[in-house]
């Protein structure tokens, strides 16, 4: 296991380093800089110059880049330029909301995915299987902004059951918070649930067709028990991989879903950071997102390897 990790780690670090450079360079290629954004609508050039100097934006590109990496290594993210407050605090707050959304979505993904997979694999009625297949295809293909608008049209505009967007703190008002959470979480969860459902179904069908299952069935073991004890555990490893990949997808998809439902998470923070050219916020945030993606990939590989002994540690 350790050697496997040692083999994977350097390339993960390399991706992170490359990403940091790309992020840093792209931000500075965008016209309009934080100093003008900070200086306000009617600032003079001297005000802009003073702010540039204070923020160190007048230094050479590579010096700034090295400075940023240095700050990262010491763990000091420093203050934000335009939004205000410490970067770590901003990211912490946004992360809270995004994780709340992602976790709720993940819960829905697991519940819906397992349900779809189990029903799909074990039903004996072709129309149920067919309907499920059509449903997962549709849900998978349709982008979240379409499902988002459709959900709002149905549940908020027509039925008036749920709010069209916004956020309430779980700590302050859990009852309201759940209502705000439902639509965005569902919108975010649907495609991943469909993918998971398919994998569960495929995995179950494959294991149910294997010899030992037939033997067990022939020996009179109840089918429920077979599925719970044998088929499901054997179908799980690929499912875990898929789930791992979906966590990355969920975090990425959260950006768009947050925009649709006015959810104050990392997606909104990133958008605001780009719009106001808040370099530190955007840089750290993007690197964090890339880092999470890389980490999730790494962990998935490890968990997969751990769950499936056929994979050797080389």
């Amino acid at each position: 296991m350790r050697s496997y990790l040692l083999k994977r780690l350097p390339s993960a670090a390399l991706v992170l380093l490359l990403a940091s450079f790309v992020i840093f360079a792209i931000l500075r290629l965008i016209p309009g800089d934080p100093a003008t954004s900070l200086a306000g609508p009617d600032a003079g050039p001297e005000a802009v110059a003073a702010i540039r100097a204070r923020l160190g934006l007048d230094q050479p590109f590579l010096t700034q880049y090295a400075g940023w990496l240095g700050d990262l290594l010491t763990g000091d993210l420093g203050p934000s330029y335009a939004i205000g407050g410490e970067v770590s605090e901003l990211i912490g707050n946004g992360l809270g909301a995004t994780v709340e959304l992602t976790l709720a979505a993940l819960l829905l993904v697991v519940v819906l995915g397992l349900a779809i997979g189990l029903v799909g694999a074990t039903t004996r009625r072709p129309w149920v299987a067919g309907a499920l297949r059509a449903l997962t295809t549709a849900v998978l293909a349709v982008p979240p902004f379409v499902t988002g608008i459709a959900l709002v049209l149905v549940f908020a505009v027509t039925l008036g059951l749920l709010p069209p967007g916004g956020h309430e703190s779980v700590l302050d008002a859990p009852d309201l918070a759940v209502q705000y959470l439902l639509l965005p979480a569902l919108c975010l969860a649907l495609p991943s649930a469909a993918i998971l459902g398919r994998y569960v179904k495929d995995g179950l069908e494959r294991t149910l067709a294997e010899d030992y299952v037939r033997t067990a069935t022939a020996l009179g073991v109840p089918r429920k028990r077979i599925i719970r004890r044998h088929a499901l555990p054997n179908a799980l490893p690929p499912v875990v991989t898929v789930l791992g990949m979906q966590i990355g997808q969920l975090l990425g998809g959260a950006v768009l879903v947050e925009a649709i439902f006015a959810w104050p998470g990392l997606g909104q923070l990133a958008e605001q950071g780009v719009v106001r050219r808040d370099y530190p916020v955007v840089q750290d945030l993007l690197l964090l997102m890339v880092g999470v993606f890389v980490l999730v990939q790494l962990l998935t590989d490890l968990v997969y390897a751990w769950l499936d002994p056929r994979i050797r540690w080389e």
Partner: protein
Amino acid sequence: MALLLTRRRRPGLLSARGLTGLALVGAVALAGLFAPLLTSYDPVAQSDLALAGPGADHLLGTDDIGRDLFSRVLYGIRTDLLISFTAVPVGALLGCAFALLAATSRWADMSVQRLFDLILAFPGLILALAVTAILGPGALPVVIVIALAEIPGFGRQLRAGILVQREREYALAARVGGASRLRVLVRHVLPNAVDPLIVQGAVAMSVAVFIEGAMSFLGVGVRPPEPSLGSILSQSMAYLSTHPAFAIAPLTAVTALVLGFALIAEALNKGIRR
């Protein structure tokens, strides 16, 4: 004909799934193609009549600045298809080029793999915001973002295909026969590894429509007043509660396109696997 009428599972595109996909994409694409015949309204002509509901004059009503929505949706379909049919081949070519490059040496393979990782790891919509901020909004940044996003998909498919094919006997035989590595790759391995790419192509079309919509949704899509499905949708958002009809036509068109391409991809995939 007999094949079509049998109850047996039909292969590839002719499966129920494939035909549904073709029908969906076909209907939407034809509507876009024949836009000038289907409507007499100029999609950018404005009038005093804003936010009219569906009716005889304006089939789907008008938008917030008095433009005919039916016409805008039809021409918006054109924009979406044009962007997708430009961006996807570019992404495919680039992805394949990288995959071929990867096949030349271990070191190249390693670098290309990391490049794909990097592209996949980068949040796509943030990339979209950045590219548009640099180039200014318009169709070009949308094409670039889509092409970029498609590179790893095509690249990985082809790379996997090459890895399998080049260990096959015919490839080994050609090598032994003295053909150069590149020649074997291009003449022998590539043609045999191409099938999954067609599937990937259909997936990519579906993703392309998706990305156009998402970018327009965030206000960084095609340049106004040109209509695109995403931009009409994004415009309609502000009127969801007061004029829900505004959103329904673009919503339907986007869904049909994305779903149609996805169904075609699935059908092709099943066909290949047989």
